[in-house]
């Protein structure tokens, strides 16, 4: 066995089943007697439901049941709860409207479900759902935040005056205004952060079942956090106690945030299974995913930086309007507040910052966390603003960044927006990235491109993010309605193999491998001796799940804590067996040794003794070798780094080609570099997608016009470059692994680097800023306009 512990690029344990087609995704599962659900969804953005005529549908072949809002209301089913409460500036609570599992009274966005048909086959359910006759009275609608805030705009919810959910702030406004009054110069930038559809490749699915003999419900669902779903659905929606509700999230085909939330379909199939006494399955079509999975981003922002004459940042003032969609998704209120505005210091020592965020209801799909969640919006704002400051003042954009960096010697660093950074070295990641991207050689490459008739640009971002969420007491003080610890249970079996039960959930991240590597490192066993179990509330004691790049920093730390307990107990058993003092027992490489002697016992000797306690300190120690740990993080972790993009634009077509991309990220301790690189590749691809291609676009009538893979531009293999990844490590000081998290860095650092490069390429056309996505038609128009201007002069 070679080195398989921390730092080894071992191949993944999970790959063989996925490569052989033996993965078990929700839609691959079927239960005897199963019926199929199909949802009839609203095709109107905003309308009163006048009636639902079910007669024709009910007579269709195979139909088992048709349920509408009235059925759920009559059974006392609750609304889908929101997990985070945010207060407005004046201290008043956010407006938190009821989110019924099926639309009640009116529909509020295209895709809002109005009825569910359950039939013997999927096709029959779909046929009958199409035969339902829903009568509507259309109401005026608004998809964009500016339209929703306009005087006289129709109200999405009667209780939300002006369609405002909350109007929140952070920072000292008077102090910031004072700094602006003293500033040598103020640079202002208005920008949007484009709305995105997460589009995990596996569409959401849910299979509900009920066992009348035990009274237990089972929900098999495409979730990133099955325990959270059990808690939310059990306690708030269906009123099923935890011990009678099992939630399983088996192999899940990507999440990126969109599978965190508790969705109506989960409650619908579970409820229907109980009522019909048979399993009920629902699987989304991709068209449904587009109008029912929570979307991401969608900010409209004005940012201003106050500067002194040397370009030092004196104060930042930000005003953002965030689109919440038609209802509050599980974590939605926290995204544009605590995961966005608290990041507005970034890597810069800006002494004072003020941000206000108005969250607005619109007639669109709910918006919640999507890979990065708030932090990409903050990084994009800061890194675009920094380039615009360089543009407006004539300063060099690299020197401007260096001048304002928090220096490597300044940690721990308290920002003016609540966070305290523990470690980082922004100068270092900048240097390494510039070297890898041959920043110095760019002018020559630009000249060569020019000779070929191409516009070439280079851009960077020096970003920071916060992940490893979160210390529960801080999260609680900020409005979270849950704790954000993680749980691990380590079971050492009698003959020394190990099963890990983790509350984290893997849906592509490779935990079955990396978590086994942590066990290998700590206990000195091979990863083949370790199985990682996740995604089943009946097997795993508890868990908060996987999002916000928290699995390693929080879930991995819980494992370390449980493993330390295993080792501590092992030492006591070893001390007994070798007749030595516990303090004299050392554990390394799978062996318990009496210090200073050649007396030792293997882990297997100890586990056997623990389960066959014939010679055992039974009076003072329980048999068995299994430990559980709950780990509540002390702080967030703060990955950061430098991303550099180089692009070429064809002025004839406006098409942007990514010619080089370099990502150098400080993510702390790396468990498996192969997996880390893969995480960065994927994040960068989504970031390039946001910058150049993707846009969830609603038209004036409230229809999602980019509602399929024919219309929504997903990055394809030939849209992307090879991605150069480098990692630097200043270990995290607040968790035992020293890991910071890597899942989101790619999606956070890349969009501003790409847009900065595009703007750089277009500098001869006088472009100061352009909003994402930098699509070919948009760029072609800019170039054409510039050419006609030049011709006119």
């Amino acid at each position, binding site marked *: 066995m070679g080195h398989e512990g921390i730092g080894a690029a071992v191949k993944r344990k999970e*790959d063989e089943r996925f490569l052989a087609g033996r993965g078990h995704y929700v839609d691959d599962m079927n239960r005897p007697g199963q019926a199929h659900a199909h949802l009839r969804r609203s095709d109107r953005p905003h309308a009163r439901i006048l009636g639902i005529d079910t007669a024709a549908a009910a007579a269709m072949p195979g139909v088992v049941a048709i349920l509408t809002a009235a059925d759920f209301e009559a059974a006392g089913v609750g609304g889908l709860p929101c997990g985070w409460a945010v207060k407005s500036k004046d201290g008043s609570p956010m407006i938190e409207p009821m989110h019924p599992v099926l639309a009640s009274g009116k529909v509020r966005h295209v895709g809002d479900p109005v009825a569910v048909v359950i039939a013997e086959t999927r096709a029959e359910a779909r046929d009958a759902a199409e035969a339902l006759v829903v009568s509507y009275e259309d109401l005026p609608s608004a998809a964009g935040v500016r339209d929703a805030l306009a005087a006289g705009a129709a109200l999405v919810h009667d209780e939300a005056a002006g369609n405002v959910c909350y109007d929140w702030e952070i920072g000292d406004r008077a102090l910031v205004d004072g700094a602006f009054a003293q500033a040598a110069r103020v640079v202002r930038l208005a920008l949007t952060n484009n709305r995105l559809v997460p589009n995990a490749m*596996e569409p959401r699915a849910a299979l509900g079942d009920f066992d009348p003999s035990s009274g237990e419900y089972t929900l098999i669902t495409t979730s990133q956090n099955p325990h959270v779903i059990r808690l939310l659905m059990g306690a708030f929606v269906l009123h099923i106690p935890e011990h009678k509700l099992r939630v399983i999230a088996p192999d899940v085909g990507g999440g990126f945030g969109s599978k965190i939330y508790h969705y109506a379909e989960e409650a619908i199939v579970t409820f229907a299974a109980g009522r019909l006494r048979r399993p009920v399955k629902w699987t989304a079509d991709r068209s449904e995913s587009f109008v029912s999975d929570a979307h991401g981003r969608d900010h409209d922002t004005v940012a201003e930086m106050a500067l002194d004459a040397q370009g030092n940042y004196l104060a930042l003032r930000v005003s953002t309007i965030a689109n919440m969609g038609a209802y509050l998704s599980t974590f939605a209120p926290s995204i544009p507040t605590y995961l966005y505005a608290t990041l507005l210091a970034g890597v810069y020592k800006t002494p004072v910052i003020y941000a206000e965020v108005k969250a607005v209801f619109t007639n669109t799909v709910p918006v919640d966390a999507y890979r990065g969640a708030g932090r990409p919006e903050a990084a994009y704002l800061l890194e675009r603003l920094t380039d615009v400051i360089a543009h407006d003042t004539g300063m060099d954009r690299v020197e401007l960044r260096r001048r304002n960096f928090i220096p490597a010697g300044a940690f721990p660093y308290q920002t003016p927006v609540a966070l305290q950074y523990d470690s980082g070295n922004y100068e270092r990641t900048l240097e390494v990235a510039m070297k890898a991207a041959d920043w110095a050689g760019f002018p020559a490459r630009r000249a060569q491109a020019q000779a070929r008739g191409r516009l070439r640009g280079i851009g960077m971002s020096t970003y920071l993010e916060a992940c490893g969420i979160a210390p529960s007491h801080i999260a609680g003080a900020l409005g979270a309605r849950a704790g954000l610890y993680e749980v691990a249970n380590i079971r050492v079996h009698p003959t020394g193999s190990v099963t890990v039960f983790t509350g984290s959930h893997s849906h592509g991240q490779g935990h079955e491998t990396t978590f086994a590597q942590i066990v290998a490192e700590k206990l000195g066993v091979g990863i083949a001796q370790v199985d990682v179990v996740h995604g089943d509330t009946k097997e795993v004691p508890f868990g908060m799940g996987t999002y916000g790049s928290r699995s390693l920093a929080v879930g991995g730390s819980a494992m370390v804590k449980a493993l330390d307990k295993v080792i501590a107990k092992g030492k006591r058993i070893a001390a007994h067996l070798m007749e030595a003092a516990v303090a004299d027992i050392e554990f390394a490489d799978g062996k318990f040794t009496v210090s200073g002697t050649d007396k030792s016992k293997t882990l297997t000797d100890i586990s056997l003794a623990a389960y066959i306690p014939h010679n055992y300190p039974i009076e003072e120690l329980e048999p068995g070798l299994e430990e559980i740990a709950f780990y509540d993080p002390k702080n967030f972790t703060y990955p950061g780094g430098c991303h550099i993009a180089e692009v070429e634009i064809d002025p004839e077509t406006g098409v942007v080609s990514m010619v080089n991309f370099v990502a150098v990220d400080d993510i702390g301790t790396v468990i498996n570099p192969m997996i880390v690189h893969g995480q960065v590749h994927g994040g960068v691809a989504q970031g390039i997608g946001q910058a150049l291609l993707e846009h969830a676009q609603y038209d004036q009538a409230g229809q999602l016009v980019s509602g399929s893979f024919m219309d929504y531009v997903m990055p394809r293999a030939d849209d992307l470059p090879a991605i150069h990844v480098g990692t630097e490590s200043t270990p995290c000081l607040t968790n035992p692994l020293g890991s910071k998290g890597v899942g989101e860095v790619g999606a956070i650092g890349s969009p501003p680097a790409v847009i900065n490069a595009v703007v750089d390429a277009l500098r001869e056309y006088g472009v100061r800023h352009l909003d994402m996505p930098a699509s070919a038609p948009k760029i072609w128009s800019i170039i054409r306009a510039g050419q006609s201007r030049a011709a006119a002069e």
Partner: protein
Amino acid sequence: MPQVSLTVNGKRHTVEVETRTLLVELLREKLGLTGTHVGCDTSQCGACVVHVDGTSVKSCTFLAVQADGASVTTIEGLAAADGTLHPMQAAFREHHALQCGFCTPGMVMSAIDLVNSHKERMSEAEIRHGLEGNLCRCTGYHNIVKAVAAAQEVMHGRAQAAE
């Protein structure tokens, strides 16, 4: 209901289907071969790619009745009887070309057809263009491209398999 007779991964099946039944539904629901996935409803994502008479086909856009008399290979039929992975599967594992695994079966089936139809060594750009019909949201394609580049060498006898 019409009957379809076809060979799937070397085994002969005769199945009753509705005329509207898609090949992917026949594979997943009638034959229990759930390795072939459905990721969209507009023939864009390629998660459902299988081989019909040796050529890659999006099985979500192919009626089951069209497969009458055909020989179909799915992801489950690639590895040898002793479990030895096909060189493309081995290269995907070696180069970490999969994360969540959902697009992987279709991606592997497409990549095999791509390599089979290009005896000359493909460049990175040619591989990227050739994989255009398959979406992956996890990998950014970086390692998939590397895996296909490595597998083409093995499949055309220019190098040894990864494992």
